[in-house]
């Protein structure tokens, strides 16, 4: 792993720590997830490193379990939205014509309806379970990814090397995955880091509307929300999950930045 800059290494380490904490949550959490063990908003102490939350539950425990939910849902939704959005976006760009028109306008249609109404309708008709949450978030987000990937791919599609590949007789699949994808990676990777954050925030917005994960399960956005009343009176319970979200997203984006550099230097320009 020579040549990895310090910032990327730091990002990777922290991200890895977060993921490990998420995976082994039941082993490292000091208390039970929904166990009330003290008074409301107790300050930090030896027994409760981060104090207690709005119901007198151990905040550190809630944070660890909350991270598990948040990271799992956000990763799954981001993965889904990127796979779907990018593949469809490239396809539309490469085929062009009516395929492109049809798919793009359908996408416009979905995007034109406010996300909130969409989420409201789907989640009040369907039972709110984790798979459905991931599916709804992934699908709604994939429309944004679709637009971006199509816009990038349309530009690349008219490049000489793509033309050359076509003249060579390569099929559309080859063009999409071997010509377009590598050249569209950098804006997409930059977008990936941000989309991951947006996914985390989207879960918290859903919790805000009462459509998020079911209690007593926790997610970071939900913990911010449960304890938000205390913020303006100097009770830090709502700030810890916010700090966790910030730390995780900066780490993920440090890694994304590094990947971005690698992909841009792979482009066959100077030093390539």
């Amino acid at each position, binding site marked *: 792993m020579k040549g990895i800059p310090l910032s990327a290494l730091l990002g990777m380490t922290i991200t890895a720590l977060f993921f490990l904490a998420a995976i082994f949550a039941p082993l490292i959490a000091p208390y039970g997830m929904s166990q009330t063990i003290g008074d409301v908003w107790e300050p930090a102490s030896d027994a409760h490193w981060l104090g207690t939350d709005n*119901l007198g539950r151990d905040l550190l425990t809630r944070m660890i379990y909350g991270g598990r939910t948040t990271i799992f849902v956000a990763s799954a939704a981001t993965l889904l939205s990127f796979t779907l959005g990018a593949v469809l976006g490239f396809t539309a760009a490469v085929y062009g014509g009516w395929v492109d028109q049809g798919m793009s306008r359908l996408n416009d249609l979905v995007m034109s309806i406010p996300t909130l109404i969409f989420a409201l309708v789907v989640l009040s008709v369907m039972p709110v379970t984790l798979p459905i949450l991931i599916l709804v978030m992934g699908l709604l987000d994939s429309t944004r990814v679709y637009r971006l990937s199509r816009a990038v791919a349309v530009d690349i599609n008219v490049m000489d090397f793509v033309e050359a590949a076509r003249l060579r007789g390569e099929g559309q699949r080859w063009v999409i995955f071997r010509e377009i994808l590598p050249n569209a990676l950098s804006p997409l990777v930059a977008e990936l880091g941000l989309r991951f954050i947006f996914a985390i925030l989207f879960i918290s917005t859903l919790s805000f509307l009462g459509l998020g994960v079911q209690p007593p399960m926790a997610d970071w956005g939900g913990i911010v929300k449960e304890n938000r009343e205390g913020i303006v009176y100097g009770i830090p319970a709502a700030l810890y999950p916010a700090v966790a979200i910030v730390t995780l997203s900066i780490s993920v984006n440090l890694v994304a930045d590094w990947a971005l550099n690698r992909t841009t230097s792979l482009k066959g320009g100077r030093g390539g």
Partner: protein
Amino acid sequence: MNDEFRYLMARAARGKLDRRAFMGRAAALGVTGAMANTLLATAARAQGPQRGGHLVIGMQGGESTNSLDPALAASQVPFTYLRTTGDTLVNITPDGQIEPRLAEEISASDDARTWSLKIRSGVEFHNGQTLTAEDCAQTLRRHSDEESQSGALGIMRGLTDIRVDGDTLVLETETPNADLPYLLADYHLVIQPNGGFDDPAAGIFTGPYKWVEDEPGVRHVMEKFANHWDDSVGHFNSVEVLVINDATARNSALQSGQVQIINRVEPRVAGLLGRAPGVQIHSTAGRGHYVFIMHCNTAPFDNNDLRMALKYAIDREDMLDKILRGYGSLGNDMPVNEAYPLFDETIPQRSFDPDRARHHYERSGHDGPIILRTSEVAFPGAVDAAQLFQESAAQAGIPIEIVREPGDGYWSEVWNAQPFSASYWGGRPVQDQMYSTAYLSTADWNDTRFFNDHFDSLLLEARGELDLDRRKAIYSEMGMMVRDEGGLICPMFNDFIDAHNAQVDGWEGNPNGEMMNGFAAVHMWSTA
């Protein structure tokens, strides 16, 4: 009355001493609560209301769908603006007496079935028209019409005849009803010209303030109505109700002086907010209660052992402490408390008892998780309360599974439809009304599906009973029936927590509703 008490009273009147603290210290000096209340009110009046000023109230409970039609009012903001711009026939005073307003004199026939209300003369509507008894009759007709959409339709059901005799309004009821005047104080029943048949949402009433601007869900501006019949109310030049649904935003607006009064202070931050300079927190014990309701006719809740198991499995003290931070009182699985007249205080308090809960649970033979539906809108902290319930029930070996429902649609889809859910009851002025609204077999809102013939006959008997001791005994028996057989789990009664800053004065809590029963703008005054 000694000097110390006089000193306390002066401080309380100037707003230097919190009402609650005043009452506590008055009690220590041997002054009874009712006495202290009256004295305090007098002292506050003696300090003297000032005229003028612009009042801004920041309130939760307004939507852009609100209407000026009193029949459609349901949330806190319409409640307040109707109280501010309109008059009802009577009001209920903080100590539960009937205060004549547009009705000057009220009398009943001996069988309490025919009621005569003499309508005040010289009362002017905001459009210059003079109030007649016919306007009052038409208003009641509009709200009691079976074709009506009124939120008051339920309480107007018992009226069989509404007629006018000169300047007197005559009402006939189906069964004897000693409590009828209390029903007429309902905020939907503000008097409109021709009862509002012509234009229900015109905003023409007889109240101390008249409409200037109505932007539903945003703000409502009213100004002093110069020709109001009662000089002792309505001290501001103008009143503005700002809709601020977010709790933190409300607190900040009060602290930064953008508004002078706010409603619905969250219990967890009330103490913290009270430390801000000039801010006074007012906590008023009321009749509203936070509840979990089970349908007595739906499995598995049709088994009284299971219902009892759940009633013993809830830790009321812990919930009162964590959810209301003490701004409330313990519930006892019946919908009434000591704030009601004729309440029997000797009924033993039920408390958390995991062993008995386990015992009843095992006897019920039930197995598998019990689904409890809840939502942020059921009552403030309902989702948290459900989690506490889940934890305490788990100690008794009873598995509760929480389903959080979207706030949107909760009242139409979950409450009164699902067998086990969280809910809220605002309370009623008298026990009869509370029980007839939700516990009579035929009640529209029998949300616990409580069908008990004996209970129904007791209720009718109490309604016509003129001997107060006998009536109290009947109510006590009915309370015990709901407590031990009903589907109501009532962990706590909440206080109304409102706050204002030093720019206004004249606060007097009223157990019938928040914000001085909606009359804050009518009775308070500016100190600026």
